[in-house]
């Protein structure tokens, strides 16, 4: 089943909601910059249906020589 389509743009309302949820303070005059920064970073995720990403395990214990990296050369 595909994901619900996401809004490609990070709106100012969504940004404010995220700031409130995170419990951080960002000055009003910096919100545009933060929206741009986060919006650009999120854009690739919002452009794909996450369930179609090949089922490779996310790796937070990143082993450079191990199978998670994908680039293996024996």
């Amino acid at each position, binding site marked *: 089943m595909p994901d619900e389509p996401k809004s490609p743009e990070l709106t100012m309302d969504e940004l404010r909601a995220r700031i409130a949820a995170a419990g951080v303070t960002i000055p009003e005059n*910096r919100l545009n910059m933060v929206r741009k920064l986060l919006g650009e970073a*999120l854009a*690739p995720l919002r452009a794909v249906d996450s369930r179609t990403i090949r089922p*490779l395990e996310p790796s937070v214990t990143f082993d450079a020589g191990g199978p998670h990296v994908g680039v293996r050369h024996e």
Partner: protein
Amino acid sequence: MSDAIAYTTIRELGARYRARELSPVEVTRELLARIEKLDPALHAFVTVTPDRALADARAAEEALRRGDARPLLGVPVGHKDIYLTRGIRTTGGSALFADFVPDNESTVVRRWQDAGTVLLGKLITHEFAFGLQFPGHRFPPARNPWNQEHIPGGSSSGSGAALASGLLHGATGSDTGGSIRGPAAFCGITGLKPTYGRVSRAGVMTLSWTLDHTGPMARTVEDCAYLLQAMAGHDPADPACSTRPVDDYVGALDGNVQGLRIGVPRNYFFEDADPDNVRAFEEALGTLRKLGVEVRDLTIPAFNRSRSFMLIMMSEAFAYHEGDLRRRPELYGEVLRERIMTGALVTGSEYVQAQRLRMQTCAEVAEVMKTVDVLATPTTPKPAPTFKMMYDPEIAFPRTNMPPFNLTGQPTLALPCGFSASGLPLSLQLSGRAFEEATVLRLGHAYQRATNWHTRRPPV
């Protein structure tokens, strides 16, 4: 001191030491004087360590008299100021650590010390390897020796500026999204981001655990090979550090690149590129073809999603800095603070999905690397911007060509390949298979034997 000595290669320096034409103490004194003369304008150094440097130089001189053959003996170096140095202030380029004197040191610092290097001092970094210092910051940013109105790149900015100015012969850098390769590109020097896990990060301040790399910066590929040889290898203190044996990087520089296959990803890396950068890159490909390298165009669609690396970097940076950011936010530069704070706005789900996309990128690139030996791109799409441009508070985080290889962890070299019409250095980026630093260095060395871009000097 003549410029010829300030800019000599590590191999030549060692040969002249052993021929008794130069001594480490003499070279160290001369470089300290050069730093005193040039650095007030360049701001490459945060801390100069003359007593330590002269002690190291005397020890090297003594070792040379005993016939010690270590190739880095008496070679003057500096460390990016996120590498902990026992008894020497380590600021991270931040007011938060302005007076921090560690009682331990990073593995790489110790390894270079064991190799007989001479420590001249600590080199300015963008604040916590992430944020250019704005006017009024406790630590002024380094200037680009080619044109001081322009940034030297970051975050290993002091390393790049000092090497280009002939203030030392080797430096450490770190690279999370291009912080070795960017300063190498903008300062006209050479820098290598090794494979993730090839060089220890123990005792180096963290920006992003899964993207941080440590590596060497120098003026030539050969110098980088000597420096990498003395820093690579397993370190149990860094859980990501590989146990694979270390190759002979200097021995690999045999000049033979006949038959090597280069792939040029024609998507992503040329978007909005400056014509000067494209011209220099295409000319570099022409040189490589003449050396017998096969060059073919490719498309790697996964690279189009590289911008998601920011989700990983900012989330991990926030995780590292959260305590200090909440307790002492006033000690962070304003722009840096907001960049890191943005990491708090990334959801857990988004962080996981960004890592999953990353794994897909790794898998896609691994398939491509079965058909080519090296990927080549321009290191940056444009020459160094001015400070005036970068001080625009609306600039979020400029798009560059380097983060894709932080995502994949591949060894990636940046080396000079020309100049813009305005006289700023331009750079070629070569990326190999994981743990194949030797191939990338061999190709880069062959290119430098065929060109002289790396021998040009800035007007300092």
